[in-house]
């Protein structure tokens, strides 16, 4: 598979990605020993954009972030920010700051000293250090703990200090390496909202690394999905969810039903199901989201453009607002559907709209 180079302004992307490229990642490759961690990554980040690099562990997402921060050198490729080469500079000369996974706060310094660290090493006048540190602490609501050592505050508070410590230097780009993964679920959701509003407030580009697709969906302007060292798809959360380019993307982002079949004479055939498509003949895979499968009354005949099937209920998982039901059709297809009206029935008549069956590419096998 060719590398998925999605450049802003290609018309596929909406939002801030249409602004001029701010950070340009070009053909970055990296090997650790014989292990190829990143192969030919090209990616643009626009000014003020919240871009999430999403991937499973081992996908290379952290390595890519560390290359941008300067902690690792790429074997090949270029980085530039604001039109200036970045990859030649040591980390301490890059106008980039990082929020580390475990915060990496200096244990021997107080919260205040941690936040003032970047300003002091840059020889900013002490009076200015004081007021900027104060401001940064106010922004993350940590003023009360200014004199505490990091060991004495909670994980969520350390998280805020780490953010303040990075932002106080007024970086042009903030990198965040799974900063929320150490927090419990409730705090994490709360921090997601805070982080997003903080990003809007400061208006600089955030590059956020996570393995949590939900987190990526909630916060990002765009998501870059990384798989085994290559970009699988780069798009807005809405687009990546509604129009997944590959089977992998469709499965990784949310739940989906993957249907393998083939296209013959303008109709897709998948077991006993078939519907009209505008595709060339040949094998094809389709993704149908569970919420696009509806339970219908058995009597009505399917409307034009709808695909009808009947299945036995195999499994139900109650999620509160909806229920995720798994059904098995007579010819062995398994479907998941998200519904509110399937209580107490063992057999369901279901249908989905042919337009909701999104053609996805087979993900290239790599290894």
């Amino acid at each position, binding site marked *: 598979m060719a590398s998925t180079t999605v450049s802003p302004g290609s018309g596929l992307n909406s939002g801030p990605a249409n602004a001029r490229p701010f950070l340009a990642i070009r053909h970055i490759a990296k090997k650790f020993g014989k292990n190829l961690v990143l192969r030919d990554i090209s990616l643009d980040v626009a000014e003020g954009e919240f871009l999430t690099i999403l991937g499973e562990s081992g996908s290379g997402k952290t390595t890519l972030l560390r290359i941008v921060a300067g902690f690792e050198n790429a074997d090949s490729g270029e980085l530039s920010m604001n039109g200036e080469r970045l990859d030649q500079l*040591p980390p*301490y000369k890059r106008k980039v700051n990082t929020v*580390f996974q475990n915060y*990496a706060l200096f244990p021997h310094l107080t919260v205040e000293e941690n936040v003032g660290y*970047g300003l002091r*090493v840059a020889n900013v006048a002490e009076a200015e250090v004081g007021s900027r540190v104060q401001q940064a602490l106010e922004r993350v609501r940590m003023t009360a703990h200014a004199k505490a*050592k990091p060991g004495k505050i909670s994980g969520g508070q350390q998280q805020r200090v780490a953010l303040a410590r990075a932002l106080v230097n007024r970086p042009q780009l903030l990198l965040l390496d799974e900063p929320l993964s150490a927090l419990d679920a409730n705090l994490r959701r709360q921090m997601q909202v805070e982080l997003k509003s903080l990003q809007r407030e400061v208006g600089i580009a955030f590059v956020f690394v996570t393995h949590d697709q939900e987190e990526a969906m909630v916060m990002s302007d765009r998501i870059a999905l990384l798989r085994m060292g290559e970009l699988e798809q780069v798009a807005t959360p809405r687009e990546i969810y509604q129009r997944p380019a590959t089977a992998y993307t469709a499965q990784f982002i949310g739940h989906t039903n993957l249907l393998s079949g083939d296209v013959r004479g303008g109709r897709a055939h998948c077991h006993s199901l078939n519907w009209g498509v505008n595709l060339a003949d040949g094998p094809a895979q389709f993704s149908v989201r569970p919420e696009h499968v509806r339970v219908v009354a058995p009597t009505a005949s399917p409307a034009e453009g709808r695909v009808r099937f009947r299945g036995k209920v195999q499994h139900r998982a109650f999620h509160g607002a909806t229920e995720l039901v798994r059904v098995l059709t007579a010819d062995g297809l398994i479907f998941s559907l998200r519904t509110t009206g399937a209580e107490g029935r063992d057999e369901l008549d279901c249908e989905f709209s042919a337009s909701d069956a999104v053609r996805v590419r087979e993900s290239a096998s790599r290894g």
Partner: protein
Amino acid sequence: MFSRAYRIAITVPPLAWVTIFLLVPYLLMFCFSFWSVSSTQTILRSWTLQNYKQLFMKDVYWETLLRSMWIAARVMMFSLALGYPLAYFLSFYAGKRKDLLYQMVIIPLWVSYLVRAYAWKTILGSDGVLNTLLQYAHLTQHPLDFLLYSPFAVVLTLTHIYTPFAFLPIYAALEHIPRNLVEASNDLGASPRQTFWRVIFPLSIPGVVAGATFAFVLSLGDFLAPLLLGGPSGIMISNIVVTLFGAAYNWPLGAAISLCMLVLVVSLLFLSEKLEKKWSFS
């Protein structure tokens, strides 16, 4: 949880050991230090402060104690000056050779102390390796006699012997510094030099204190190096204690000096522990 018999079986032997080989001897030493020796060389078991008086009045004891501390202080400084950079290099820059280099620092510890002290005798003597070399190279006409039988020789030998002891705790402290702190410092714009002084060094202080304490305390009580290489000007306090317990047959005075040393060393250990605690964050 455990049976009574089991608990007795595991606690009694170590307690007995500590009592017989540590507490009783210390108690005996304590008692001896308040006794005296008669003119007929028998120990008089009547309580007196005479030994301590003598200790504080006679210059030779004071001077030797101060010299011992000065030698120990120099050994401490040189051991740190050698041990710290070595530990820093090993911990941060040695990469794949780390384990090999670490072993190379440790291996000298397997060699008997006595052998290493004698080795320096061979190197520093007037017919020794160093003097022969210097004369052969026409850098000196006559053998340099300050090399051996001098405080210099003692400091050199003790530094050689105790540098690994200073190195080890420093290395351990440096190894414990999370590397993402170093990255965070770089990320915040600190140059490698700033990162060293603002992050790495402060976090390695517990190791430095432990290493300094090892080097100082171990050299302060040393008696072999001054005996073999010190000469009259390099005598240390332990040599006096050894003489008092041996040829001079004045156990009470020897015990009094030992007790003073013990108090000094224990206070130092106490102080160093305080310092280590103050500077550790985990």
